[in-house]
């Protein structure tokens, strides 16, 4: 379908098996309330939040339990009603133990909502304040505090926002479900974000593998000519910020720069929904929405769960894993994190939980680099992954830096496409980290 598509696209990229059919027609299910939740204090980019509660305090759902520490940080709300059991190190996604608040459920679920606001008359300042109070973090993966993104530096002239509806990671169907289940709310959410930023132009970018969402959004935007639906070719990594901007407004974000620098702010579909919920319903971000999928899980689903529910509980709720399960991934298959500790909690920005089996991963024997150029051909940022990996592996940081190792967005496209099955991104990630550290320490000296 997508191979001969004439829809807009970028240079490079790959077409992994989508497997979206596993969940695309399953409406969101609300997972029942867990008996215990673990709330990491760092569920966002920036400084960890400061705890406001003590052991044995009673809390209600939606009550603030931690406040931002500094400008780039976030409020955290209790996702359940109960008692603070513990504050200390617990398991986390990715494996490193981290500071978290553990809450045990007690009594009936009582939710404290904020006061609903009128979406028509609300001002920019009020929207930003509400987004901050609701503890909303970006839902596209990086979990950047959303209110910060709504307050760009004064010298940046923001012309438009792009809502990322590409959902280019295979398997994931969370954003798709929002687009078809809450189309109208999504439009209101987008308009709220536009008002907060004072921009007159909104673009929703959707890959052409979601015809139903395209149809519904096109219909819903008829009364809103300031919002345009842009149909994109289905290709990974279409949802990467730089690719999306290139395709939607034909601008290239230079290396080391941000979308802001070319006058664009990007927001995710669920972020817009969260903004709607916070403003219109007064609901803080204490749930996560995720696709649970893969051939290793009994019943794939799209779920809404309270933040802090453990991975194990979510897997159990979907009927558990089968004997062929080989890998558990938090996020999508291209950029997600392999997880081994199932007692780690779902966080605000968790978008997927995949249980993969050997045949769907298609791993083969690693061989020498064959200099076939397949990695160069698909890198959307025009890097030479083969050489970046080679220099990083050899510890030649200067060479890696000169070839642009820090520009790499770790999208995984090159590794995916390498017939020699060389873990290119793994090496590049290492090189990138090292080079950034070296650059920092140089700056500190001078």
């Amino acid at each position: 379908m997508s191979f001969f598509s004439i829809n807009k696209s970028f240079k490079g990229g790959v077409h992994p098996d989508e497997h979206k059919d596993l969940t695309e027609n399953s409406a969101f299910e609300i997972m029942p309330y867990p008996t215990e939740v673990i709330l990491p204090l760092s569920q966002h980019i920036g400084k960890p939040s400061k705890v406001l509660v003590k052991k044995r305090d009673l809390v209600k759902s939606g009550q603030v339990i931690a406040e931002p520490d500094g400008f780039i940080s976030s409020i955290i709300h209790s996702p359940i009603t109960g008692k603070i059991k513990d504050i200390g190190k617990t398991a986390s996604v990715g494996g490193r133990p981290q500071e978290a608040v553990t809450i045990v459920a007690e009594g009936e679920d009582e939710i404290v909502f904020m006061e609903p606001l009128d979406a028509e008359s609300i001002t920019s300042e009020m929207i930003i304040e509400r987004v901050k109070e609701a503890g909303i973090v970006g839902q596209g993966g990086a979990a950047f505090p959303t209110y910060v993104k709504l307050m760009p530096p004064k010298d940046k002239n923001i012309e438009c926002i792009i809502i990322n509806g590409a959902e280019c990671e295979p398997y994931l169907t969370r954003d798709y479900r929002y687009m078809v289940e809450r189309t109208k709310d999504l439009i209101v959410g987008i308009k709220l974000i536009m008002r907060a930023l004072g921009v007159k132009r909104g673009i929703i970018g959707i890959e052409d593998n979601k015809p139903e969402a395209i149809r519904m959004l096109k219909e819903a935007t008829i009364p809103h000519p300031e919002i345009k639906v842009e149909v994109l070719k289905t290709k990974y990594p279409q949802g990467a910020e730089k690719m999306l901007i290139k395709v939607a407004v034909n601008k290239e974000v230079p290396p080391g720069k941000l979308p802001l620098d070319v006058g664009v702010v990007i927001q995710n579909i669920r972020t817009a929904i969260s903004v709607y919920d916070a403003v219109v319903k007064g609901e803080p971000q204490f749930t996560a929405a995720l696709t649970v999928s893969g051939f290793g899980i009994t019943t794939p689903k799209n779920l809404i769960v309270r933040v802090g529910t453990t991975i194990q509980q979510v897997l159990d709720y979907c009927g558990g894993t089968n004997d062929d399960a080989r890998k558990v991934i938090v996020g999508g298959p291209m950029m997600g994190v392999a997880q081994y500790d199932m007692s780690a909690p779902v966080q605000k920005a968790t978008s997927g939980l995949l249980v993969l089996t050997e045949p769907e991963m298609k791993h083969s024997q690693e061989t020498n680099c064959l200099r076939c150029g397949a990695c160069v051909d698909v890198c959307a940022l025009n890097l030479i992954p083969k050489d970046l990996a080679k220099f990083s592996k050899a510890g030649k940081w200067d060479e890696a830096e000169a070839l642009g190792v820090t520009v790499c967005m770790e999208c995984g496209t090159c590794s995916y496409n390498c017939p020699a099955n060389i873990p290119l991104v793994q090496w590049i990630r290492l090189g990138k980290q090292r080079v950034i550290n070296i650059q920092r320490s140089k700056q500190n000296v001078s």
Partner: protein
Amino acid sequence: MTDLKQIINTKLELASSPHVHTKLSTERAMQMVILALLPCVLSAVIYFGIYQLLIFLVSIGISMGTEYGIKRIRKQANTLSDGSAFLTGLLLALILPPNFSLVFTGLGAFVSIAIGKEIFGGIGYNIFNPALVGRAFLQAAFPVQMTTWTKTSFNVDAVTSATPLGGFKFDGIAADLGSMFLGNTGGSLGETSALAILIGGIFLIALGIVNWRIPVSMIIGILVFGSLIWMINPEAYMNPLYHLVGGGFLFGAFFMASDWVSSPITAKGMWIFGLGISLIIVIIRVFGGIPEGVMYAILFMNAWVPLINRYTQPTIFGAKK
């Protein structure tokens, strides 16, 4: 909680992202190229007889044996299963003359692997196309045998058994383009049938194993450079279509120049490489003392690949051009 026992118990993998991979592997790619060469093998047998199968057998057998032996001596892991030694043997056989001596065939296969590949460190490290290294050796060592051509089985009344390019160069005889397309002319085992080569070549391009830029740039190059010379004096010089279907050009374009290891990795580099090969071929064929030139042209351009890669690095996305 975070203990190793759990990992072992559940047999969970933890390698970092990406967690999925394309179907293509080194092994599968080699298998597909071998598959794509079957039409050429078939045309060799149809036009030159069943004896040719022995050449294939010897070439492939000695290639694999040589690689196995060298890996044993060097105490390195055996790499036969990646299929590349098999492929080198097959490719070498396809560019040998019909009824070629089996002893010399074996010698060529040994040189292909030992000098063409293993001396550099094995798969992925060689600079030159190994099969062409083997052929260049045979050409130098046994020039007469390497240019002794046989008539095809269906060509009993042809006046000469020379190759179409040789016939034109030395005797001024133009062969029939239709026969050249089907393969009913003198030439190396797998090189005579344009039809068989195109079937396999297009299959490999469709699978993404052969990068289209190399054969396409070579074809454009040979037509353009060939036409330029031809237009100077259409009587004396060959029609560019002869350049295209004659000799080892198409086989070289789809199966030799496009070899992963010895061709450039950048898009621009592939164009330079392909056009360069065609330019040299036309120069050798028109001004040189030999009717062919594909092998030398590819080997010559192989040597420039590291430099081409260096100077054709693409501009990083968003950076100033």
